[in-house]
């Protein structure tokens, strides 16, 4: 099944415009529970209805209301996209930056950028991908999707331009918001840090994402199977919080010994 395109527009690089569509680069494999009518055993759907007329309303008849000073202001999708007509349709590349300078905490959702159109689009796309890959850089741009603006970092993976939306700086909670739990600038004893690095290296390996199985997904499947067979399902016990170690050095040494076996 071809993935659905979420946004159609153009990537603009100087005066070069590349018509593109965006597709999600992730798939949701999380098990979801749905609401079901226990009598007819059919899935429940949410239907939008007008509270005044009591009749169903199609999605394209839905407008957006925002409360300001006790008054509800109504705007339509057309008005929202007309506020920034260019950004609604074009990702303007503003800058090229080193990927390493982007704090991973900023990354939000990942999309694939796919050329849409003929030979001209395909060639401009190939060119952009080639120079970005050679420079080892990310291109930064902005665009508007539905009711909000996104900062985006474009990178190349296996010849495909990948777009990650980035959070804006003011969407990140500052360290000061942690109050008493905020870490202070500290210079821990070198000996302890070295010991911890030893442990980290001992547990070190290359990153292989396929090694990690989604145990939650498995768990849900197991439960559903059990339920189908009519087995009883037991409630879990309450988790406990482990206590802090009193002797950090000793704990580190013991851990290293355990890893080395």
């Amino acid at each position: 099944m071809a993935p659905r395109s979420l946004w159609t527009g153009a990537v603009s690089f100087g005066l070069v415009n590349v018509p593109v569509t965006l597709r999600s680069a992730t798939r949701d494999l999380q098990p979801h529970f749905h609401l079901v009518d226990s009598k007819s055993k059919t899935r429940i759907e949410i239907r939008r209805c007008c509270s005044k007329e009591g009749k169903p309303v199609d999605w394209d008849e839905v407008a957006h209301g925002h409360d300001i000073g006790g008054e509800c202001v109504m705007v339509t999708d057309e008005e929202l996209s007309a506020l920034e007509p260019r950004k609604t349709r074009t990702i303007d590349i503003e800058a090229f930056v080193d990927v390493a300078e982007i704090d991973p905490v900023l990354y939000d959702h990942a999309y694939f950028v796919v050329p849409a159109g003929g030979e001209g689009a395909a060639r401009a796309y190939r060119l952009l991908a080639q120079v970005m890959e050679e420079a080892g850089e990310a291109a930064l741009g902005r665009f508007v999707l539905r009711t909000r603006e996104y900062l985006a970092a474009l990178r190349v993976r296996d010849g495909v331009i990948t777009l990650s939306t980035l959070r804006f700086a003011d969407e990140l909670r500052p360290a000061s918001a942690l109050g008493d739990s905020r870490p202070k600038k500290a210079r821990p004893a070198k000996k302890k840090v070295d010991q911890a690095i030893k442990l980290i290296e001992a547990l070190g390996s290359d990153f292989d994402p396929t090694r990690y199985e989604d145990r939650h997904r498995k768990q849900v499947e197991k439960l559903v199977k059990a339920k189908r067979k009519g087995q009883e399902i037991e409630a879990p016990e309450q988790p406990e919080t482990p206590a802090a170690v009193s002797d950090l050095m000793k704990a580190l040494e013991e851990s290293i010994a355990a890893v080395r076996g």
Partner: protein
Amino acid sequence: MVPVKLYSAIEDRTVHFRELHAKDGAPIEHRRVSSKTGREVPSERIVKGYETSRGRWVLLTDEEIKAIEAPARKAIEIEDFVPADQVDPAFYDRPYHLGVGDDGREPYAVLHAALKKAGRVGIGRVVLRGREQLVAVRAGADNLLEMSTMRYADELIDPGDVDVSAPSRTPTKQEVDMAAKLTQGLHQRFKSGDYEDEYRARVLDYLGRKAEGEDVELPEDEAPEETGDDLAAALEASVKAVRG
């Protein structure tokens, strides 16, 4: 064991809207109807279910769903420490700040310093809201340990599965050189604070003016231009524009 407290690292700044019926401005109600009959279903008849195959449901009570919640300890169990640059950012999902837990200042600082020096991130698991998640713990700015929930390998689509149409003629050396010049001209140091959500401000301004009864004019729409066949000419003009 490093005692920590978990805080969301993000604050929602999106402008929130309620759904209204465009025609009469009345609020939209969400009614729960049967997908078969389209008729409203009384809430006492609604239960949770899991679809095992199309149209076949296993019905579950809230207690049974609770039983799925992993009865794990309240701890982030680190399994591996991997080089930070090997983890593609596409794996990262939701970020959290780890605050210092009770009596934990020293081990917290030691772990932060060691992760930073080793250039590694810890990959582990934690139970959040009843669901076990894969997470990465790394040394962040401001002496903070950061944790991100991670997507599993099979949740990322392989770029090789994306159909990107290849051009019949690859870009010429002149075009590549020119485009490279353009990227160099646009190179910057990345500072996250340099970028603001301008649209958010514009939406709020527009809503405010509309609330006061002002007749707000919307900006003119410009038709998007498409680059013609002459890629080289467009590039040359772009390089000139950047150099000013």
